[in-house]
């Protein structure tokens, strides 16, 4: 079950303080990177919610993010909604789509689930890529940023936007943590361990999976809205399965099923990517090798590794009752 261990709380506080402090001192490019990290963090929290806790390893989260980004941009530009209603609409659309995908894929497990989500993600990608309404390969520009001038915040300023994005990460984290502690979250974790038993206990498995996937999809859609607001330009590449693959990489890099770890992973991934790509155009290969090394090491990512080390230092719980037959 999901709990906030002291280590996790410490890591969260450090991340919050660190990112906010950096937001106040960083230069322009630092703020861009901070916003990039924040958007990726939202996506990977969403992914960890279903993949890490529910065992639903999705390769369509990039597509869900992209749907959010496109829905937001189209709602704001073509339909003329202001930013916040457009965000609500986009998040709802991502959630609805995720619910349908989750419901259809609920019967598939393991690699079948991965393949099925990959297929749905590519379907969305092809649709957007092909559709002239969405600007095809060239994409769409002009996604607005929310207008917070009423409370004295100008989100067109990079610093304000970075802080706004960090606040959204916090919101995402709270939603994810609350979900994990709700009845649905408990069921989701149970499903990961033993789907058959939960069904025998009376759980409508497909609905639980679809609902959890919808919540995750909503968060991915939120990440999409922020991505659109951040670059103010979107293209079908956002929906590509490689974005989902990269998100999965980040979750693994940080620590699957820890909710905090993926945030750490997002920080590491973005910083690493910028550092390495400054050195060589072949940075993909280096990222690939790091990924292989992390997975081969069998540690649960960077944060998972730290957690395991800390747990190893604590004394093991002792059996309170003698076993008649071990």
């Amino acid at each position, binding site marked *: *079950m999901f709990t906030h261990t002291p280590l996790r709380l410490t890591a969260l506080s450090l991340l919050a303080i660190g990112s906010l402090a950096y937001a106040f001192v960083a230069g322009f490019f630092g703020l861009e990177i901070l916003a990039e990290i924040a958007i990726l963090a939202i996506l990977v929290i969403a992914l960890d919610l279903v993949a890490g806790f529910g065992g639903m390893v999705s390769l369509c989260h990039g597509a869900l993010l992209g749907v959010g980004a496109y829905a937001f941009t189209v709602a704001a530009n073509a339909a003329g909604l202001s930013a916040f209603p457009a965000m609500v609409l986009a998040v709802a659309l991502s959630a609805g789509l995720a619910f349908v995908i989750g419901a259809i894929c609920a019967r598939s497990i393991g690699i079948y689930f991965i393949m099925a989500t990959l297929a749905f993600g590519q379907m969305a990608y092809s649709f957007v890529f092909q559709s002239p309404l969405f600007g095809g390969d060239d994409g769409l520009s002009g996604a607005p940023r929310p207008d917070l001038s009423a409370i004295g915040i100008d989100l067109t300023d990079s610093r304000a936007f970075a802080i706004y994005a960090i606040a959204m990460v916090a919101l995402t984290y709270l939603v994810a943590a609350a*979900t994990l*502690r*709700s*009845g*649905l979250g*408990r*069921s989701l*974790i*149970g499903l*990961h*361990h*033993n789907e*058959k*038993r*939960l*069904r*025998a*206990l*009376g*759980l*409508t*498995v497909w*609905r*639980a999976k679809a*609902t959890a996937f919808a919540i995750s999809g909503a968060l991915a859609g939120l990440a999409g809205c922020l991505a659109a607001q951040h670059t103010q330009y979107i293209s079908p590449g956002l929906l590509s399965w490689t974005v989902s693959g990269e998100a999965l990489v980040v979750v693994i890099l940080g620590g699957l099923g820890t909710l905090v770890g993926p945030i750490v992973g997002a920080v590491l991934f973005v910083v690493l990517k910028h550092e390495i790509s400054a050195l060589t155009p072949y940075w993909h290969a280096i990222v690939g090798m790091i990924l292989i090394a992390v997975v081969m090491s069998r540690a649960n990512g960077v944060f998972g590794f730290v957690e395991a080390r800390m747990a190893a230092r604590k004394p*093991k*719980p002792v*059996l*309170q*009752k003698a*076993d*008649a*037959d*071990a």
Partner: protein
Amino acid sequence: MLETRNLTKSFGPIHVTKGVSLKLEKGERRVILGPNGAGKTTLFNQLVGELTPDSGSIHLDGADVTALRVADRARLGLSRSYQKNTLFDGLTIGENLGLAATVAMGKGQGLWRDPLHSAEVKETVREVAAQVDLAPLLDMPVNAVSYGIRRQLEVGIALATRPKVILMDEPTSGVGPEMSKGFHRLLKALPRDLTVLIIEHDMDLAFDVADTITVLNYGEVVFDGLPEHARESQLLKDIYLGAWEDA
């Protein structure tokens, strides 16, 4: 309370359940006996809906549930334990019971509150833990306890749904004689209005808890009656003891 009519199921040429008709009254304790491969677990799987029968029907508390799915039947008060432990391995014993209670109470899809900390779930967990003798171990992770304790939890999870009918598939399989006896003490202490159907291997213990006995052989009911009659039945001895000695 639980009734089957002419239940039949075959896998290709092999009949695993052949015209099985059973009727359990409320509060009845019935033991199903039969050699390996007699179709006992297959019958359970059909009762809870994990397998669909080829023909025949299943009735729970007067309602035809043959077309209902596993989860729907569970919500009507049908619960089961498995011959092979089917637990939530990463969680603690308390969380296992809590999760079962949560789902059974229909809170498994809830979004707003933490059911594990709700009074009702906590109360159920406490009661069931007492019933299956796990009260002091609630905080132990499942993967850190012995096999015998896991067997107890297996039944505990089934009980945590507060069922009307519970099906137990060899609850003492693989545990030693001492623990097995303790288990039967627990079974006898269950509330009298709970209908219990048990697959059991150990004849003596079976006769100890059973109100009635059903014997299956090659998917067919070959005996259905009181334990004392079963004890005297030559047919039963031939089939059951023959197979028993072979094993």
